[in-house]
């Protein structure tokens, strides 16, 4: 990333030609790296599977929990300290990764690529959300191990829950704040997140979100847009401006950390209550 970022930075600062060419070259560079970066959102589940889960399942597998739980420390304290400290470490690693990705993205400057707000995957791999996702993944894996105990079923549970949460979070980001309405036909500013788009009729009345204008109902698909525009309808965008990035980041982190706290609390309760 460092090498790649340096290359990109050199191109941005050193290329004196046509800006469109710069865009094109940057686009190539970006796509190369994006092939890798697009996998970043699933890093937290890997953390959960290969780091969080063995915290307990390995103990159960090797029976070492019988050793650990009969020392002079109560089980509740043992698991709470273990989960707490390791989750903090996982969160720190996530934050570090977030910082690296953010720095790398910043080398692209004000281009249409590298928008951590608009790209749902990059959003969860940058800023504080990266740390929160890692912490959540770790706690999810560890608590799956506390409840399911055996490695493979616990893995299945972890993956299933993680996918549900990821889909849930990615689709519910719209609800974090009220979007701003852009002027008719305006392009969204660089770095903003589009909430939804709709139409404004010739009379200035907005078509409700999710509905089509009451014209051109029977128009074939390829001439539909032209027909609607001829009928006087204008495109209207609702966006979250780039300034809302951090608000979204903190909201998402709060949600994930709350979920992690719930899961972790349940795991501590499960372990400190004796196995039945």
């Amino acid at each position, binding site marked *: 990333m460092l090498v790649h970022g340096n290359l990109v930075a050199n191109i941005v600062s050193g290329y004196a030609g046509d800006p469109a060419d710069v865009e094109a070259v940057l686009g190539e560079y970006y796509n190369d790296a994006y092939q890798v970066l697009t996998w970043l959102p699933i890093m937290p589940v890997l953390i959960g599977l290969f780091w969080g889960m063995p915290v307990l399942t390995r103990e159960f597998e*090797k029976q070492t929990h*019988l*050793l650990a739980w*009969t020392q002079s*420390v109560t089980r509740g304290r043992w698991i709470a300290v273990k989960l707490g400290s390791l989750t903090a470490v996982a969160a720190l690693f996530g934050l570090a990764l977030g910082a690296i990705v953010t720095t790398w993205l910043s080398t692209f400057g004000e281009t249409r690529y590298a928008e951590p707000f608009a790209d749902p995957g990059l959003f969860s791999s940058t800023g504080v959300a990266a740390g929160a996702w890692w912490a959540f993944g770790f706690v999810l894996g560890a608590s799956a191990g506390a409840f399911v105990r055996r490695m493979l079923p616990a893995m299945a549970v972890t993956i299933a829950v993680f996918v549900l949460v990821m889909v849930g979070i990615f689709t519910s980001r719209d609800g974090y704040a009220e979007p701003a309405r852009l002027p008719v036909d305006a392009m969204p500013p660089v770095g903003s997140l589009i909430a939804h788009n709709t139409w404004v009729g010739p009379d200035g009345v907005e078509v409700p979100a999710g509905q089509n204008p009451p014209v051109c109902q029977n128009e074939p698909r390829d001439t539909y847009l032209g027909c609607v525009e001829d009928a006087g309808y204008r495109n209207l965008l609702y966006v979250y401006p780039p300034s809302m990035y951090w608000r979204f980041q903190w909201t998402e982190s709060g949600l994930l950390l709350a979920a992690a706290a719930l899961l972790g609390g349940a795991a501590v309760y499960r372990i400190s209550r*004796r196995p039945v």
Partner: protein
Amino acid sequence: MTGDNLTALAATRSDRPTGERPVLEATGLGKRYRRAWALRDCSLAVPVGRVVALVGPNGAGKSTLLRLVVGLLAPTAGTVRTFGAPAGDSADTLAKIAFLAQDKPLYESFTVADTLRFGRHLNPGWDDELARARLAELDIPLRRKVGKLSGGQQAQVALTVALAKRPKLLVLDEPLANLDPLARHDVMRGLMSAVADSGMTVVLSSHVVSDLVDTCDWLVVLNHGRVQVSGDIEELCGSHRMLAGPADQAAGVARRLSVVDSSSTDRQVTMLARTGTGDPVLDPSGPHARSGWRSWCSPTCASRSPPRCRVPRSPPRRASHGVADLAPAPAAVPRHGRTDRGVRHRDAGARQPRREHRLGIRGRSS
């Protein structure tokens, strides 16, 4: 048999005014896994300073009972208390108990030194000097990974961790399983010298009774999840005998005696029965008199030499009936070679010297 008589015997013993409450006390203790009861109606009380042998076949509920005692499991029914407090409930109770689980789990990626550090950090009463001295004596290198040690050495490390905690109650689940005879001997010797030094109460389980010969003074027999016997070994030995005879007559004998345990082949049945303190109760005039029944002290008892298991004062008169009643006993005693020792035990009287002698560590400095 339900073990009621013998549990009652144990209860009367623990009711004696010893001035100390039992280290371990179970009342109506039961544990159910899903549908099946692993342990039922278990009531026993173990006085301070005893070495308790918990014996029973595989699946009898030994591990379940021990895990209940150290608080790893919660009872489904009844209560189990150690030092007067619910088992394994608090750090305070945990500090007084050490547990060596079956298969002696240790963190295999730890070095031996790491393992000691683990014990030191998790136990306020940790005796690092004791641990290091023990391991040095056993020639176990501190830098070696635990996973690279031999099975016997791993058992010794696990036992060291348990002992260095300086527990008042040491609970060992099958401490000798999976060990070769030499390692068994070493582990048992190490354990017993530590026990003699500290006077702690020990509960150890085994399905191989011969492991526990000579080391234990309190016996708990579990079978099918129920306590069959619990009490002082010498008292139990005085009132139980092994019987062997034709399998087809086993039911008849079982009607007249409380059979604790029995095993049979096609033709022959061998059973442990409560025969009372009198002479063996094979009625010479009964239907079994001529049919080849014999009785003897269990090997465990023979080595302890309760009066009935020593050389009989008079040779058995019933040989003519075909019931070689006490005949095996004279053979058994010399075979175990402990006749004189046993007599001396009896003479020594006081509890502690007897135990030390039995532990075979008389020559050791404490």
